[in-house]
């Protein structure tokens, strides 16, 4: 079966999720990957959305972080202060799943502005939950589309701390959670070098060359010595993802304007 780069990215991200993870889920690609994992190899994956829904089991992908579908299928729904204080800050979440407009080689993220903060060229949505998700979850996965505007040498603004501007600040601040451990793009997967915390390419998606990754990365990207190739999507994975997307399109398109 043929697949798109976005499908490969979603499937590669889904594969990295474990059945016993308790996952704080962002909207968009993270939500798609989490629900695909739940539909395939990780039926026991626990999904928590920042709207307060604990153990949500949506049949369709929510458009927003607080769609009724999440509350209706959740084990329980708590208030937003309780979600951030007891569940996230309290250390109950094993995995946070983030995106952003820009990421640097140390997994720091910008979702605030492009350009100068006081006179921005583009005003982005802002931090949302990301700042404390990155600090309080056991470990962090990041998903981004791979292009030089997103994978940058220097962030325009540091919204969310990865390993820090030189890769050492997270450790020096004494933050005990692992921070970003995996970056999945539509071209490859990357993992931090254990010494420097710099993200290096560990596997290329099928058909992607080293040059394609170099051209689309804003820093001088490095490749792991044992560079692998991502297994192509299986028929089962593709069917599950497409079914999820079709169900979602039907559900959202069917609402009267």
């Amino acid at each position, binding site marked *: 079966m043929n697949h798109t780069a976005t499908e490969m990215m979603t499937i590669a991200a889904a594969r990295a999720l474990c059945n016993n993870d308790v996952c704080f889920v962002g909207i968009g690609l993270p939500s798609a990957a989490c629900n695909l994992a739940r539909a395939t190899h990780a039926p026991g994956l626990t999904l928590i959305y920042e709207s307060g829904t604990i153990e949500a089991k949506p049949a369709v992908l929510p*458009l927003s972080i*607080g769609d009724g579908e999440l509350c209706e299928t959740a084990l329980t729904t708590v208030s937003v202060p309780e979600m951030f204080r007891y569940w996230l800050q309290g250390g109950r979440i094993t995995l946070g799943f983030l995106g952003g407009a820009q990421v640097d080689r140390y997994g720091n993220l910008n979702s605030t502005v492009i350009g100068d903060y006081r006179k921005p060229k583009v005003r982005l949505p802002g931090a949302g939950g990301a700042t404390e998700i990155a600090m309080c979850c056991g470990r962090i996965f990041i998903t981004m589309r791979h292009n030089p505007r997103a994978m940058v040498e220097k962030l325009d603004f540091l919204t969310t*701390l990865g390993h820090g501007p030189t890769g050492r600040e997270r450790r020096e601040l004494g933050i005990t959670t692992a921070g970003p451990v995996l970056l999945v793009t539509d071209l490859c997967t990357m993992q931090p070098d254990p010494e420097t915390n710099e993200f290096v390419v560990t596997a290329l998606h099928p058909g992607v060359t080293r040059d394609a990754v170099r051209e689309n990365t804003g820093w001088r990207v490095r490749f792991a010595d044992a560079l692998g190739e991502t297994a192509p999507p299986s028929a089962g994975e593709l069917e599950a993802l497409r079914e999820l997307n079709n169900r979602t399109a039907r559900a959202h398109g069917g*609402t009267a304007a």
Partner: protein
Amino acid sequence: MASFLPLHTAISTLVHDGDTVALEGFTHLIPFAAGHEIIRQGRRDLTLIRMTPDLIYDQMIGSGCARKLVFSWGGNPGVGSLYRLRDAVEHDWPNPLEIEEHSHAAMANAYAAGAAGIPSAFFRGYRGTALPEVNAHIRFVACPFTGEPLACVPAHRPDVAIIHAQRADRQGNVLLEGIVGVQKEAVLAARRSLVTVEEVADELDARSPNAIVLPSWTVTAIAVVPGGAHPSYAHGYYSRDNAFYVAWDEIARERESFAGWMREHVLEQGPEVFGERAGLRR
């Protein structure tokens, strides 16, 4: 005790030019009808507090109601930008907008501190990020017992909190269910409060003794506006109008299309149109 008022009277009595106002509702139960009434009454120089500005603050900012925005995530969920918010920040249109920017955890903690009647909130956050450099209200203090550096933000104490809820009983007690967000905290943190409700019933019919109930004596005014959260939703009454959230992207992108939409659907309408918009039988 809460007073039952028509929405027009409630807004004109409770919301004044220059007030600090929090319209809350985390995706669910967003008080759109009340926001539209504020726009129709031409309020100016408001400081708007809200975790997720959403379409309602896009509309209020684009209509020139706001001087300042205190927020943590300003996008159209799952769709993209809030173009009226962006136009205000990027091009000062229709007027300059001061922003005070936080994270969700900070905003939630600030409301909880306001409800608890203490001046500030402490939590584990913000460390190593650039947000404290652009927001003087983000500080750090050392825990007096362990020395851990904790983020500290001032409590939210709005002049007025406005929320939407499923129903009130005839005594003015208010029930909210589903995704309950920070609404209880916002009401308890505020000097005055307005709750718009889907209906008034003899009994609240809470599904559990632990449901979120705001006693009548914590609420200043209640206005009955069926469908008043549309295109957000009211759990048990109507669903989120996701198609409208998608359509807003096009409407709000340009100043002219925004102004035209606002004239036709807000300025020349009243709260009575919300029931039909939400698909409720009249």
